[in-house]
């Protein structure tokens, strides 16, 4: 996993609540058995005017000029600004895979669906929660300032605006540690093999019907 420490980037505003994971990456692309290559189909139904299918050349498809990621001023965006309950719906990790593959390193929204939020941290994408009023302000600032960039510092847990305003955000200490260092948490868990085995032994005594042998 790519570590996340400090990042400055162009911000793209996606101004609608309850953006679900079917919208982030439609189901036909979930047939892939790979972990990469989902970026060209991020927000597929909003981004293109035709119907996307796996295996077709996306560079030849007609773009929807009204969709935010297709507008010239947001090219190269690496921070997504969104509304309430972003990432609701299915557990598909293909959603953060697609966001990451497209080039997003962070998302800022007032709230996220639990599973999506969790999945982001496993893929080097930082989901930041800011107050709905602050998010509303940022939406306004982006519209009036072409090339609007934000700087996100995970060490200090701060988002700073071009005008020098700073907003603090909360992040779980363990997740922060993993993200700052790009750590694979399976390796970390396996440092506690003895604890898992001890639990399992006790569980076999208390609830033996849960074990085949």
């Amino acid at each position: 996993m790519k570590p996340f420490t400090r990042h400055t980037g162009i911000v793209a505003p996606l101004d609608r609540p309850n953006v679900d994971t079917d919208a982030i990456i439609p189901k036909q692309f979930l047939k892939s058995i790979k972990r990469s290559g989902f970026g060209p189909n991020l927000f597929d139904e909003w981004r293109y005017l035709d119907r996307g299918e796996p295996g077709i050349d996306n560079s030849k498809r007609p773009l929807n000029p009204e969709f935010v990621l297709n507008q010239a001023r947001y090219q190269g965006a690496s921070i997504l600004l969104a509304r309430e309950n972003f990432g609701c719906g299915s557990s598909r990790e293909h959603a953060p895979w697609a966001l990451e593959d497209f080039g997003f390193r962070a998302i800022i929204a007032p709230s996220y669906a639990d599973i999506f939020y969790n999945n982001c941290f496993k893929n080097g994408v930082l989901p930041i929660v800011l107050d709905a009023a602050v998010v509303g302000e940022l939406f306004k600032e982006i519209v009036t300032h072409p090339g609007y960039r934000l700087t996100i510092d995970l060490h200090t847990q701060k988002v700073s605006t071009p005008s020098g305003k700073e907003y603090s955000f909360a992040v779980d200490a363990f997740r922060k540690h993993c993200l700052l260092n790009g750590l694979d948490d399976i390796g970390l868990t396996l440092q506690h093999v003895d604890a898992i085995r001890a639990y399992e032994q006790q569980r076999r005594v208390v609830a033996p019907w849960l074990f085949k042998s």
Partner: protein
Amino acid sequence: MAGRALYDKLWDAHVVRSDADGTAFLYIDRHLVHEVTSPQAFEGLRIASRPVWRVDSVLATPDHNVPTDGRARGIADPVSRVQVETLDQNCQEFGLTEFGMSDVRQGIVHVIGPEQGATLPGMTVVCGDSHTSTHGAFGALAFGIGTSEVEHVLATQCLIQKKSRAMLVRVNGSLGAGVTAKDVVLAIIGRIGTAGGTGYAIEFGGAAIQSLSVEGRMTVCNMAIEAGARAGMVAVDQKTIDYFHGRPYAPTGEMWTRAVAAWRDLQSDADAVFDHIVELDGSSIAPQVTWGTSPEMVVPIMARVPDPAQETNAVKREGMRAALKYMGLEANTPIAQIAVDKVFIGSCTNSRIEDLRAAAAVIQGRRIANNIKLAMVVPGSGLVKQQAEKEGLDKLFSAAGFEWREPGCSMCLAMNADRLEPGERCASTSNRNFEGRQGAGGRTHLVSPAMAAAAAIAGHFVDVRNF
């Protein structure tokens, strides 16, 4: 010390170790696996040369991509076929139990887990699928996980988690005739919203929930995720225990007696403390129909499509306008005047035998309306299909003009060939009315099986209570 909620009991019983900040290793008893969210996890194990920690905890089946007709011909779509074959190969390589596509026990993971007794009360159950909350209906702690976590559970049998807050949704009173578990859960989502349960584990209780069959409780817990909660659950009672007796993976003999004794404690103590309590009057719930592109956009069948102009919150108002535009609906249209093109009875929400019986009771002796392009029934598993055929339900459906299909997820998410065309309107017993969910441009209205069946006969939504 205050009493413990069911969630507290399930959580406490599965903590392997925990840190000072509350981050815990949670032990997983049952891991259900399907073809869509597992290939990258198995690949991860291979790359790191890691074995599966506990092979006997895993049960796998393909469900999302499988065709629901002409299955003997295999899967026509080569990309879908590779994904299903990859699951077969991974299960073989790692020594895992899989009910393959031609096995009569194959079906939607959330239907086959309980059907086999592979889900049991008191377990932690996970799957790379958000509707894993379904299994909470049996007094289990069950929730969906992402693919990285699928790999983590395969490799370590644990998840790294922090405890959620506990919410109690109490549905009092008794439900009216024609009002089902689906209507109850849609009414709950309409009340608390799709983010109302975010950060919570929801316990569903009260007389109306207790009166539901275990299959009805599965429907309620299934859609806990649509209220934002990763986990939904219902306390164990005699119905729960009776359900598991004699199931293939359930304990037998002396072990059964011991298990039942333990399961009886799987309910919240009388003085349990919840972080939030919501109460609904079950007797005031009418059959529900969604009108928009989020499950919280729901109204009773007697109502009209809401008017965004009446909404004071600007973000919500714009969301409503966008939803009406996508759905091709005008504000203030009576719901009962909305005509449908297709009807889908199936999905992990409503594809069990009781769902099929409820739909069959409505259509008995009638025909689908002329404007219905397709009405289909997709049983949740091969065994549900077999049981329905034993009862003659397949003949009832066929005589009414429904297509009788093979089990799978089908048009709930349209990963296989079953889908809506742009602009088509569907009365669906599934769980998500998101844009494009049932096919790009498709328009989904979520309803109960009885309401879907009635819509197929009438050609438009209709109050099944007067039908």
